[in-house]
């Protein structure tokens, strides 16, 4: 099985490459449109529905600095697809080069167990968990900004900060009472 490897290719000058993985293929499109508008750094965005990525693109694909899994909490399939895709990443990515982004967390029809499950997953992998609002342009811009902060560090473009250092500060933690029933 072909794993995606973090350091097997050379980096580009002042370039950051991000891979957005989303089962629904909706939010990744609008997020990508905002991400490429960044001027200080050249941002290249690759979009995928799931991993593993096709072999045909192996040659032309640049070094991926950050892999973002976009999970929509309204769909169980979204979570399962992301979980299955994790197996196709080289372990080197989990030192700060993977990030989880969750949408529709405020939706009342979402079972709370799903968010807990995503939290546990992110915490066990020492990855940050971002919440995004994908319906409005403002929400998309905000999500893109936060993602860019992490991306610049992961691509090595921020002096004195490495991806591993940042992830130890931003990684998701699960509160100790997560298994207790919540007040609803």
């Amino acid at each position, binding site marked *: 099985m072909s794993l995606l490897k973090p350091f097997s290719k050379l980096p580009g000058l002042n370039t950051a490459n991000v*891979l957005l993985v989303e*089962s*629904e*293929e909706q939010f990744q*499109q609008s997020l*990508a*449109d905002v991400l*490429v508008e960044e001027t200080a750094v*050249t*941002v*290249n*965005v*690759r*979009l*995928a*529905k*799931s991993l593993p*990525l*096709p072999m*045909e*693109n192996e040659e032309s*694909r640049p070094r991926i600095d950050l892999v973002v899994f976009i999970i929509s909490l309204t769909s169980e*399939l979204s979570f399962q697809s992301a979980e299955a895709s994790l197996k196709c990443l080289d372990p080197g990515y989990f030192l700060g080069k993977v990030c989880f982004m969750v949408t529709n967390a405020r939706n009342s029809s979402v079972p709370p167990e799903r968010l807990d499950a995503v939290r546990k997953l992110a915490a066990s992998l020492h990855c940050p968990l971002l919440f995004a609002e994908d319906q409005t342009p403002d929400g998309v811009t905000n999500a893109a900004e936060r993602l860019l902060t992490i991306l610049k560090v992961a691509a090595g473009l921020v002096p004195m900060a490495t991806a591993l250092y940042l992830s130890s500060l931003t990684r998701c933690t699960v509160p100790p009472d997560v298994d207790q029933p919540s007040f609803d």
Partner: protein
Amino acid sequence: MDDSTKRLLQRLMRRIPTQMLKTTLEKWGRLTAAQQQSIDFTQAKWALTEKLLAICEENEWTAKHIAELEMTYVTENPNQGMWYAFQLMDPEDDAHSVELMQFKEQFKSHLGELVRHVSVKIKKHTDEAVWIRIAWGDSFTRPNHLKPTYVVHHLQTPFVFVTSLTSKQKPLLSQALVLSTRYHAIKDANLSGRKLTAIRDLLMRQYQQVFPTRYPSPLAEENQTVSNPRIEREQAGLAANRCQMACEAFGDGMLPQLQSAVYKLETKFRDHTNKIMTEREEPFRCVVKFTSTNLLESLRHCASSGIASTPVTPLLSSIPLKGRNYFVITDNGPGPSSQMHPSQN
């Protein structure tokens, strides 16, 4: 003008929305120019109804005229009520050369023989469809114009579309249709929907079909919503494949608007962990119903976005392929549709 005619006109006026009234009356063409001018279409519905009743008295119209007006309205707005499709079977040698006058005479005479009092109106629409309005009566009562049956038939095709038909009237209509179109039998096509145009387009395949090709590359590029060269889709090839297979199964562009699909399962329960259910002798009966404002569009999207696996399962793709939306699934495969053989006397 008698009470029943008045009631018929009132009922009809309730049915026609105000914005359609002017055009419908113009199309009908029985009002004189002066009368048409004298109606103020911005009034409330009840005022318009009164005005039309007055004109009706003036012109001495009968139930037949009102029925004609109703037929004009329904012909122009066929997407109401529930339409059922039927298919004629086993044509005679001259079934394909039945033309309008012959069909009209034969149908009227056959139906007249079967039902003592019946009022039949046949009209050919601009799009080659023959519209039939039937008001049913029996040996003792006059035809009931309040509950007419509408039948649409395209000559030289085996398809018939019917609305508002009771089970008592069904064998009579079937007999008359079979004899006048020179076929041997008529069966239920297992297709129903609210929009006549949709079920007609589905059965007669009047939507954009996509045929399997070896090199579908022009279609693949159409899907590129990405214009920025810095954004690249890794799995564009796979997405294009899924889209192609979805379009091959359901068609491209605007699809006929079906509202529902019903699958009636009469299969055995299969789950090894549940002994009680699997040991039952009788088949497990279950009905699965899909509803949507545009069912075929939803199914096509399911297939192209990967929610439904591709190649599309025959259970779903047989909706457009066989032109039905009611299926009976038994363990050996989809069941036969119900047959109807009117008796020959």
